[in-house]
């Protein structure tokens, strides 16, 4: 990765220059991932809507109740309400889960249609979207891993140094105060950022793929019983759902950090590659 300053502009007090931060492959693969993961999440929610309940074990009918269940039921006073049951405890989630308004009409659907692809009930179409973009995502992921290792993007930019790891505590404090590295330090990812990226790239993303495969009856036959490492097919389905939401949580934090540490600058660097560095005087 080029480390030479691109241009330097002289301001009255502080110098700032554009630094080539993200290579073309990283930028392209980042945006492919944005599209693929968004569509996977939203088509996944539509697939969930076809049977909005999660279980623990090898099957759904084990004699034990569902871990999570979203449904619509009649409440005498209020008419229809949306309810979400978590470990048997019931919550009224009308408006969001179980019953939501869409185009001015109340709809009895687990996740609201504004959050699903397609934006109407179609399990068949949601599966087509999901499996197409699952392959886009897998191909992109394989390309990324090969690139990161071959170009040393992984070792140079992602793996934290021992010194950095010692600064985790300080970095957490900085993040909580919305303080971000400036000057030369902002060329590199900070240690929490590195750890978050590594956890997502090498733990959560492979895990969500593996959990997806665990739901395929054909892939179950690769090695009969392998799905039991997750507690069975229905447990795998539950975990697939949980990991998807953990990824969503990561995206929320990621976008939040981007906004508070310079939305324009980060967007530019992920589009053009160039990140503006303000030298601390």
């Amino acid at each position, binding site marked *: 990765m080029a480390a030479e300053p691109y241009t330097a502009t002289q301001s009255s007090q502080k110098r700032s220059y554009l630094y080539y931060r993200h290579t073309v492959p990283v930028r392209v693969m980042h945006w492919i991932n944005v599209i693929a993961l968004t569509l996977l999440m939203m088509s996944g929610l539509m697939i969930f809507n076809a049977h909005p309940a999660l279980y623990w074990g*090898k*099957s*759904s*009918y084990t004699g034990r109740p569902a871990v999570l269940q979203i449904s619509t039921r009649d409440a005498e006073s209020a008419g229809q309400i949306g309810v979400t049951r978590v470990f048997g405890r019931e919550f009224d989630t009308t408006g969001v889960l179980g019953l939501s308004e869409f185009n001015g009409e109340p709809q009895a659907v687990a996740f609201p249609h504004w959050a699903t692809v397609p934006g109407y009930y*179609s399990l068949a*179409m949601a599966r087509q979207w999901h*499996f197409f973009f699952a392959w886009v995502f897998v191909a992109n992921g394989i390309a990324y891993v090969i690139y990161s290792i071959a170009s040393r993007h992984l070792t140079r930019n992602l793996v934290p140094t021992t010194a950095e790891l010692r600064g985790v505590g300080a970095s957490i404090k900085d993040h909580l105060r919305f303080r971000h590295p400036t000057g030369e330090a902002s060329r590199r990812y900070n240690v929490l950022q590195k750890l978050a990226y590594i956890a997502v790239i090498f733990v959560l993303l492979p895990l969500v793929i593996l959990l997806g495969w665990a739901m395929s009856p*054909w892939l179950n036959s690769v090695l009969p019983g392998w799905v039991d490492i997750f507690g069975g*097919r229905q447990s795998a389905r539950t975990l697939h759902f949980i990991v998807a939401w953990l990824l969503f949580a990561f995206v929320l934090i990621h976008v939040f950090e981007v906004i508070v540490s310079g939305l324009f600058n980060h967007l530019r660097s992920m589009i053009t590659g160039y990140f503006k560095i303000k030298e601390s005087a």
Partner: protein
Amino acid sequence: MSRRKLLRSIGGLGALLLAGCDRLSGTTWFPKVLEAGERASQGVHHLLTSRKSMAQEFTEADLSPQFRSNGTSAPNNPQYRALAVDGFASWRLKVDGLVHKPQAFTLAQLRSMKSRTQITRHDCVEGWSAIGKWKGVPLSEILASVEPDGRARFAVFHCDDPMTRDGTNFYYESIDMEDAYHPQTILAYELNNKVLPIPNGAPVRLRVERQLGYKHAKYINRIELVDSFRHIAGGNGGYWEDNGYQWYAGI
């Protein structure tokens, strides 16, 4: 442009793209593009498994207390109901198409043939699973006695349950010859040590354990061997396939 304005335009762009997704879903060409995903799954799955890779089998302890009936639970078909009255004594399973010896089997004949018992998990396309114990005649036994023609590529299962209220549009399904000869592919006539109940597909239903539930045709009355299913019903190889679902149901 302010930060807020930029965020708002990103949000607006997102909403526009999603509206675009719905428009694409409604076209005829775009779902065909998405089908590349199905083909990729089928291709990769077949690379990873052998022709006779076995679905997981379970123990009695894993059995679901009640095996869920999905789709049709009582076929709205007078002929079927008449057959059910006398315990399917006059029911016949016709096997024809690209075979050298077309035959019709009685239920008693099927029961007297070699059988296989398996405790397997049924995975519905909707997401739920149920575990049941099935006993039936391996489809390979039937094929051995009808002697398929070398041109046969698919086994099509014609069923007795109409999918529309007026009693037409019968359920059907199809599998390829690899699945047809798979050891776990059976025509089940028993569920959980009892005669197969009507809600679960009496008198016989297909078990094709490496695929999703909709492949497991119930209320079968005829098996037709074909080299293509394009001329049958909607031409996509099954009732749900004609309604937009994937023919390859291994995922």
